[in-house]
């Protein structure tokens, strides 16, 4: 009996957490107490979650594009393949996979740990209890502006990321002499589909939601002290990264195939 309990305990724990997570979501999407305050908080969150993530996204995207282009060019030794394939593959892999998924995984580390530790610290220092005692819906007040900010700003980061990856690819190819500008641009423009961008945007919005809600969940239900805040922060990043990968798989199945 004890062995069964030991085996079932982690499964029950996961199921309990999933239940708590969905119950949390149902409370978050309530009407904010004051729209003016919600607007102010939204602007702050856009700055914290969005604008402050731009520099790291720019750097990552630039180098990511450069590496994709170099790897593709270096591995293309079949003379039957046209030269512009490098640009085509760089564009496709950037739009379909690298910009939405890899960037979201990196932002899960940056934003996820930030959100979990911010809300976790508020929990252990009783600031959330203070909000609740005042009669304020702490979940809506703290988390809803973060969700809206991420959903609004992640697509903007994605568009910049795609553009900069393509620029990175171009710079690396031209500097290494593996392809000319004309060939690369021709590749980028070949077989372009608007639906690829829509697919990337849908993925990014889903990932933004996943990162913010899962990180907030771990932060909000932190128990204990400083050590537990750190633990929640780590759990938030690990869980949101795993969920992003699982969602990526199912979204690819649903949208592309």
């Amino acid at each position, binding site marked *: 009996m004890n062995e069964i309990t030991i085996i079932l305990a982690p499964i029950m724990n996961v199921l309990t957490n999933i239940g708590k997570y969905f119950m949390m979501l149902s409370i978050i999407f309530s009407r904010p107490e*004051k729209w003016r305050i919600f607007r102010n908080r939204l602007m702050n969150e856009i700055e914290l979650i969005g604008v402050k993530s731009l520099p790291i996204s720019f750097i990552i995207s630039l180098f990511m594009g450069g590496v994709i282009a170099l790897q593709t060019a270096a591995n293309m030794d079949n003379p039957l393949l046209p030269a512009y394939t490098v640009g085509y593959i760089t564009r496709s892999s950037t739009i379909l996979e690298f910009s939405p998924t890899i960037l979201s995984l990196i932002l899960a580390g940056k934003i996820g740990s930030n959100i979990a530790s911010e809300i976790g610290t508020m929990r252990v220092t009783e600031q959330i209890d203070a909000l609740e005692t005042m009669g304020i819906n702490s979940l809506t007040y703290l988390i809803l502006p973060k969700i809206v900010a991420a959903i609004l700003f992640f697509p903007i980061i994605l568009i910049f990321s795609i553009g900069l990856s393509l620029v990175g690819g171009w710079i690396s190819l031209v500097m290494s002499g593996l392809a000319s500008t004309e060939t690369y641009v021709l590749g980028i423009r070949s077989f372009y589909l608007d639906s690829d961008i829509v697919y990337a945007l849908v993925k990014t919005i889903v990932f933004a939601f996943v990162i913010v809600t899962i990180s907030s969940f771990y932060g909000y239900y932190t128990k204990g002290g400083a050590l537990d805040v750190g633990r929640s922060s780590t759990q938030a990043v690990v869980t949101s990264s795993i969920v992003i990968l699982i969602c990526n798989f199912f979204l690819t199945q649903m949208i592309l195939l």
Partner: protein
Amino acid sequence: MIEVVKVHKSFGEHQVLNDISTTFETGKVNMIIGQSGQGKSVLAKCIVGLHEVDQGCILYDGRNFSDLEGYERRDIRKEIGMLFQGSALFDSMSVEKNIMFPLSMLTNMTKKEMQMRADFCLERVNLSGKNKLLPAECSGGMQKRIAIARAISMKPKYLFCDEPNSGLDPKTSIVIDNLIREITYEYGITTVVITHDMNSVIEIGDNIVFIHEGKNWWHGDRKDIITTDNPEINSFVYASQFMKDIKASMQENLKSNIQNL
């Protein structure tokens, strides 16, 4: 008046509160005392709704708080001010914004009105002119006073103070105690203080409830607590050798006074 009626609360297998009933009177400093881990803070959190009771009910001036749904509790919660053990000030906001926060969230006051109220509350806790400081720039005693200012900003009918003197030196503790007492009498608030600081109990406790093993073990006022024969109370009040010596000398004095009569 707050009535606690037959309240039970467990966490898993561990029963923390066991059939507690008591009354906290209006315009008095009501104290919940007891050793650490006996359920004082849990009782306070049950009363303000941060924990749900398993059985029993909490009545705020006859209104059954336990039966109300989350959004229906808001009206009562607006009448509650709470001072937390660690002050629980919002560290990203200035002192002034901390005090104005409940006003901006829960009232339709203009910015000027909120500013005036914040100034008044700060003046009341002797912190005029500290409006623009951040909580991190204030001492522990100042943080407690700012938390009191925030708690009274909404003109509460009920004030809860969870270990208001923890981490403070004796002199600052007395300042905080006196402030709590003055505010209680001045505004006719039902104040509930959770503490294990005997100085506070003797200084300001009008109505004292002693929680032991999750039960309402004893209740009385600050005179009763000195003279009671209850062994658990005595071992709590006279825990140190110093206090035991004081009690022995008091009893000797009492005996000699009786003999002289």
